[in-house]
């Protein structure tokens, strides 16, 4: 593919992301003019050039303290989950791998629930992403060890081990919530958080997730060529010069870092890591250097749009974001599974 085509697709995705961001900030229970949105953002970022006096204080609060952080968290979580999907699909050499399908999301949730129920999350804000990362890492290692044999991960083994692990980890999370929390309101908040959502996300959530997600995406880009070879099998990759064990270790940590950071600030949001890389692969091909960057951009736009839908589909009530992504992703996943088995049965 010519470099200019790659650049045009990236530019297009950037433009789409920008439009999604403006729409995400402008549309909501109080719809604002996009010019007002831009004025507030410009005034906050460049106060000497664009003074804020021309905008109402209420609009400033809505834009800068409520919607902008929410949209930024949505963008980073969407990008993080999409790239986590790309990395896991490469690691498992299986296009159906995705953080929540294979139980890694449940591991991150368990880690987060532990810090919620012990009160650590209140005392140290950073404990939440760290615990979610550790939970994701442990569950990813378990699935990898159980499902991978001889450098290959069959679909059935991957999905079955993911289902079993997710069930176990979800049960543990439920047990912890029911045992540890005497305050029903806190328990309700945790359960609501587990359903996935971006309501009441603040700048703190941006700082809690964005640095980890950026680091994860950058490392994924650095290891993009290793992923190209790893999807062809570990032996082939090693024969062509990849230090397979070292690359695998780093990529497993990256996948867990991305999943953990996303789950920590947004709860369980399924299928983004499945839908986005699949669609992007169809457009731009499977080379990971292109796939990582474009999936990150497309994942960010996708989740901002899903969040916008969640906020506006049934006002004033917000539909949980996890429900929207599952409603889009589950049928897509089943379609892919049917196609995969048709291909296998035709061989």
């Amino acid at each position, binding site marked *: 593919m010519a470099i200019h085509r790659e650049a045009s697709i990236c530019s297009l995705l950037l433009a789409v992301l920008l439009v999604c961001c403006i729409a995400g900030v402008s549309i909501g229970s109080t719809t604002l003019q996009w010019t007002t949105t831009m004025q507030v953002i410009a005034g906050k970022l460049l106060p000497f050039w664009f003074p804020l006096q021309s905008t109402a204080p209420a609009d400033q609060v809505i834009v800068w303290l409520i919607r902008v952080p929410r949209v930024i968290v949505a963008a980073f979580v969407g990008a993080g989950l999409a790239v986590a999907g790309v990395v896991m699909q490469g690691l498992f*050499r*299986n*296009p159906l791998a995705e953080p929540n399908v294979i139980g890694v999301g449940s591991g991150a949730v368990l880690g987060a629930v532990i810090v919620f129920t012990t009160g650590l999350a209140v005392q140290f804000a950073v404990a939440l992403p760290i615990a979610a990362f550790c939970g994701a890492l442990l569950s990813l290692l378990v699935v990898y060890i159980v499902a991978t044999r001889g450098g*290959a991960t069959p679909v059935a083994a991957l999905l079955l081990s993911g289902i079993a692990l997710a069930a176990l980890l979800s049960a543990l999370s439920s047990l912890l919530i029911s045992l540890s929390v005497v305050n029903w309101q806190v328990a309700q908040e945790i359960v609501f958080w587990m359903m996935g959502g971006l309501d009441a996300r603040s700048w703190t959530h941006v700082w809690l997730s964005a640095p980890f997600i950026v680091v994860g995406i950058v490392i994924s880009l*650095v*290891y993009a*060529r290793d992923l*190209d*070879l790893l*999807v*062809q*099998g570990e*032996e*082939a990759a*090693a*024969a*062509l*010069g*990849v*230090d*397979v064990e070292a690359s695998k270790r780093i990529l497993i940590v990256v996948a867990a870092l991305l999943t953990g950071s996303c789950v920590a600030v947004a709860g369980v949001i399924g299928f983004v890591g499945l839908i986005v890389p699949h669609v992007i*692969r169809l457009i731009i*091909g*499977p*080379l990971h250097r292109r796939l990582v960057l474009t999936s990150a951009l497309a994942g960010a736009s996708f989740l901002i749009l899903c969040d916008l839908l969640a906020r506006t589909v049934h006002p004033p009530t917000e539909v949980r974001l996890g429900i929207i992504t599952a409603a889009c992703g589950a049928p897509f996943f089943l379609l892919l599974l049917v196609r995969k088995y048709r291909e296998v049965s035709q061989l």
Partner: protein
Amino acid sequence: MNSLEITGIAVVRSGREILNGISFDVTTNSTVAVVGPNGSGKSTLLRCMAGLWPVTGGAVTLNQTPLPSMHRTELARAITYVPQETRLDFSFTVRDVVLMGRYAHRGRFERSKRDDVDAADEAMGRADVTHLADRLVTNLSGGERQRVLIARGLATRASILLLDEPTANLDVDHALDILELMRTLAREGHAIVVATHDLNAVYRVADRVALLDSGRLVAIGSPDDVLTPQNLDRAFHVRAETLIGTEGIPVLLFHRLEISSGVHCR
């Protein structure tokens, strides 16, 4: 001159002995064919020679340097291993796959250089897959995929080539092309080790043959010295008859060994 030497190597996996006490070497301008029945350890031997599997005894050295002490990229630039099959579930183009043979020659952030593109083009030409360059590997036949893997191996421009059953999925025409290519590569200064079940192909390409049986080296030497009725009986339990083809190349015919009751002998 490059020399890949294996000295008394043994491989034990899950308590099962796969190879034991195998020694030989391969140098530039020569081809060694590794033959033997199913499960005799041919593929394992090639993997050990590529440094992909650790040996539990003995050593594999490249120009006197033990393979485990070399970095993987350094090894990949010197030795290429072409497996019989590779997972190709993701829809890369043939050109993408062949260019992946240049992994060890490029930095992490480098795009393909002129040299990489030239190496890939030359490799595709030699393996006769240039016309497939923009096709998706997921849409290729088994034989076409195998030629793509050979092209990917050639794109590394390594001087030592290890090929596992390179003609197994090929039609007769392409199989002869690949055998001819191996001869040419050996003449150009490559050292080649090829594991094969096609004993008649051995006469076309190999200077030496290593005959394995149950993980042990039964014989090594010229094809005429190794592919004798006695050795083939011992390793394959068949009666072999040698004819001379029109090109002067020996052709082996095989017959089952039978005992007086008419039951096939194994």
